[in-house]
Structure formats: structure tokens, C-alpha cells
């Protein structure tokens, strides 16, 4: 059984080499379908696609620095009930972590899904990616990757990966069956594959990879990247805490919010079929608005903006994996990811929990004990 393997890269093109690997998953490894990001428009933003024909990977590009959707939601859709075949899902680390949260919330299942995680060097926001890729050929993903591994993610025209990615301390996939490693190897000559689970080991064996040792530079490359990202994250926490320290500041921070709820729609862990903010609970009578306005003298419309964001924080912050899709989806460029992540860090710390860490951890609001948190009730149990 191979636990660690080196995959040779053809024509100095890791994307093309992965396309070959995905084809082999269908042909040699008894995988029924592969879910992987594809340039469906023969260019442009790659979207997740479910592929069953080994010939249909020619536009697959999981290395593109684009992140139009957190595919955890798609994998949840594919695994809620048995699909009758194994699906291999090629995911970023934050997508896997969000999927772990969804599994714990009974929105998905890990049995029929094989998770292939890729080392993540980050992604541009949606509009930035469109600008980045414009005029560049099929090598744009490889060019980004090689520069990003060297620590350079910004471009000459001032584009850079999203703040969520810059602050992400999980570039290496956790809980994946097989990890496709790029840190610490020369991606133009080889990719490092290793199994995170027995199922992953089985897969590598079916593909006839032979065992190797972990590349020497990998550990130091990961540590170096983490240091940079954690420093960015901590600065972000500090800045955001200061910028939202009281309700007046929070109101200013969220001043451009139009209550479109896109952050909720894009959020992979906001899984309620019907969000309370979309129900008629918030369909107030006209006279009610006037009463509120009279009482305060002024009422921001649409109303309930702060109420919405605080409630959402109470509902999802313990499950937030920091993927940044909320900011990606915000039409008015409010730095919502920064706010949600800052609060999520506090609430997760309070419960000794880390979203996406393990499928065995209990979600903080689903588990409870008779004797705990006595400080909440003034020391009384």
C-alpha cells in the first residue's frame, strides 16, 4: 500500500497532469464520477462539474486561483442520500472543512464521497479573477501557482488573492482521503500525493503509485506560508475588532448593507432551507415601520440590518470555516468575512471548538452537559 507517492508532471503542466489523473480515477480506480472545477466556457471562471466520461476533463482546472462557490454545498447535495456510486470530489481545504461541518449537521455523508484535497495557495475574488485571467492562455493557473509558491500572489496590475485566503491558516487539506501536495515540490516536474485515510491509501494503490518519502522541503514550505498567513490574520482580527467595537462603529461598518442576504446564500454552513429573515416574520406592517421611525426619529431602510448580522453570527459563527464566500458575494464590498471570522474565532475559542477540524467533534450548539459553563448562571449548577 502506498501512503505517499510522487506523480510525474507531463510537459511541465500540472493542470494537464491532473486531468490525466482524474481520467484514471474513472478508468482504474472504480470511481463513478469526479467533481472538479472546469472552465465550462473554455476559459473564464471554473465551476464545479460532475464528470463521468474520462474524455471530458480537458477543461478541468482545480488549480485556477478562482473560487466562485464553496463546493461543500455541492458535495452535500451529492451525498445527502446514497448516490449508488462513489464520487471523488476535488476540493480546496476550506471546502472540505465546510463539508465536515455540514456532515455534522446531517447535511451530507462521507461514506460515498472520496475527498481529494489540494494544497491551496489562495484565490482571487470573482471579479478580480475575471480580470486576472483575461488575455492569458491556459497557462495562467500554472503561472499563478509557481509565483504563489514563491510567496508572490499579487500581480503587476495590482490584483491579489482575497483577504480570506491571505488570512487562511489551513492551506494544507485536513480530513481528505488523498492530498495533492504542491508545497515543497517543483510543480513543473512532480506533484506529491499522500493518503490521509485508509481509503486514500487504497486509492493510491489502485493507481499503482509506489511509496516514497515526504519531500524534504515540504514541511518548511508549509511553516513559512503559515507564519505569513497567521500574521495577516492576527492583524485583521485586531483591525476588525477596533472597527466594530461598539454599535455606532458597527453601524458604520455595515452602512452599505442592502439586506440582500447574499452573504447568507453564499455561506456554505448556513444550511437552513428557509432563513427566518426571508419569512413573513420580517414582513412588517407599514404602520410598524412608522412607529419605529417615530420612536427613533430616523429608521434606516431596509431595516433590521444590524439585527440580521448579529443573529447570523449567533447562528453560524461556531461553524464558520473562514472561506470568504460571504465577502465574495457582497455586492457592496463590505468586509463581512473579516467581521464574521473575527467573531467566529472568539465563539469557537469559547467552546474549545474549531470548525472543520474533525467529524468527531460535537458542534457547540448541538451538544450540552449537565455540569458546564457555571459562570453563565452566576456560578450555580
Amino acid at each position, binding site marked *: 500500500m502506498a501512503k505517499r507517492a510522487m506523480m510525474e508532471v507531463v510537459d511541465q503542466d500540472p493542470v494537464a497532469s491532473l486531468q490525466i489523473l482524474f481520467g484514471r480515477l474513472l478508468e482504474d480506480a472504480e470511481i463513478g464520477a469526479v467533481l472538479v472545477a472546469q472552465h465550462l466556457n473554455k476559459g473564464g471562471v471554473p465551476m464545479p462539474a460532475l464528470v463521468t466520461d474520462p474524455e471530458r476533463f480537458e477543461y478541468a482546472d482545480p488549480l485556477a486561483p478562482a473560487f466562485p462557490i464553496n463546493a461543500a454545498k455541492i458535495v452535500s447535495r451529492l451525498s445527502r442520500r446514497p448516490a449508488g456510486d462513489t464520487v471523488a470530489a476535488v476540493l480546496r481545504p476550506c471546502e472540505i472543512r465546510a463539508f465536515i461541518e455540514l456532515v455534522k449537521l446531517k447535511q451530507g455523508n462521507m461514506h460515498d464521497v472520496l475527498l481529494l484535497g489540494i494544497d491551496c495557495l489562495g484565490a482571487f475574488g470573482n471579479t478580480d479573477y475575471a480580470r486576472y485571467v483575461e488575455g492569458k492562455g491556459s497557462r495562467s493557473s500554472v503561472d499563478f501557482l509557481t509565483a504563489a509558491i514563491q510567496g508572490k500572489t499579487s500581480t503587476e496590475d495590482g490584483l491579489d488573492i482575497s483577504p480570506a485566503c491571505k488570512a487562511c491558516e489551513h492551506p494544507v487539506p485536513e480530513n481528505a482521503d488523498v492530498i495533492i501536495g504542491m508545497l515543497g515540490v517543483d510543480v513543473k516536474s512532480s506533484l506529491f500525493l499522500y493518503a490521509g485515510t485508509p481509503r486514500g491509501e487504497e486509492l493510491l494503490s489502485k493507481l499503482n503509485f509506489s511509496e516514497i518519502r515526504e519531500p524534504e522541503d515540504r514541511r518548511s514550505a508549509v511553516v513559512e506560508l503559515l507564519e505569513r498567513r497567521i500574521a495577516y490574520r492576527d492583524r485583521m482580527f485586531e483591525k476588525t475588532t477596533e472597527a466594530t467595537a461598539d*454599535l455606532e462603529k458597527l453601524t458604520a461598518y455595515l452602512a452599505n448593507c442592502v439586506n440582500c442576504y447574499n452573504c447568507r446564500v453564499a455561506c456554505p454552513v448556513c444550511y437552513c432551507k428557509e432563513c*427566518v429573515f426571508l419569512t413573513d416574520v420580517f414582513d412588517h406592517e407599514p404602520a410598524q415601520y412608522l412607529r419605529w421611525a417615530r420612536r427613533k426619529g*430616523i429608521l434606516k431602510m431596509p431595516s433590521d440590518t444590524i439585527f440580521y448580522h448579529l443573529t447570523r453570527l449567533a447562528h453560524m*459563527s461556531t461553524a464558520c470555516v473562514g472561506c470568504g464566500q460571504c465577502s465574495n458575494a457582497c455586492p457592496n464590498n463590505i468586509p463581512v468575512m473579516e467581521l464574521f471570522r*473575527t467573531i467566529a474565532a472568539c465563539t469557537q475559542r469559547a467552546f474549545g471548538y474549531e470548525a472543520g477540524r474533525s467529524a468527531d467533534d460535537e458542534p457547540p*450548539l448541538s451538544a*450540552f*452537559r449537565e*455540569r458546564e459553563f457555571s459562570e453563565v448562571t*452566576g456560578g450555580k449548577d
Partner: protein
Amino acid sequence: MKEYEPTIIAFVCNWCTYTAADLAGTSRLIQPHNVRLIRMMCTGMVDPKYVIKSLLEGADAVLISGCHPGDCHYINGNLKARRRVKLLKEILPRFGFDERRLKMTWIGASEGIDFAETVRSMVLEIKALGPNEARRQIM
């Protein structure tokens, strides 16, 4: 000038604290009139958004009070409520709410004296703290 009278919204459990409040009344225990009781079938029904809405709309404090652990009519609703209060106590102070504006207690059906005392001390505490500025601060 009239003394500042805080408004306290209390979400109380039908099976214990509400009965205790009733007992406090029928026992003619003297207590301040600042509390607006909202009877719930269980503190486990108190969604965090009820607390957030109360505080945003200008309540000076929120009290959630239910059965002692082990006594819940629905086995464990009070324990769920405690986790939610713990969560809110992490979130709300980060936006300038004083943590003392959210209180949780266990008061059983026979503890009318305890209820009256809880209300008395909470009113004193919130009076010392002053009004909740949230309603003024957000538009």
C-alpha cells in the same frame, strides 16, 4: 428629576420561574416593577435572536430563567439555553454591550423568594449601569 427606571425583558420557563414569579406575587413579596415577563414553554425555546432584538430595541437588560439542571420539563432545554447564553455572552460584548445586560438564572417553581431577590438585585445592578444606548446608536 425622576429616577431612571430600566426595562428588563425576562424570558421565563412556564414550569419553574414563571410559577416562582407567580408565587412571589401571591406571597406579596415586594419587588420592583421593571421586569416584563415573557412566558415560554421552556428556556430551550429562547432563540438568540429574541435576546438580540430585545437589546437592539432598547431593553436595558434581558433575563433568561429556567429550571435547575436535571429538572427541565423537557429533559434538557435549559442546558441548550445555557450554551446559547454562553454564545451570546461571547458575541454581544464585542459590540459594546455590557455583559451584565444578559443574565441567566435557575429558579425553581417553589423559589418565589429567590425570584423576587433576583429581580431586586438585577434592577439595582442595571440602574447602576445606566441605560442601554443601543436604540440611540443604531438607526
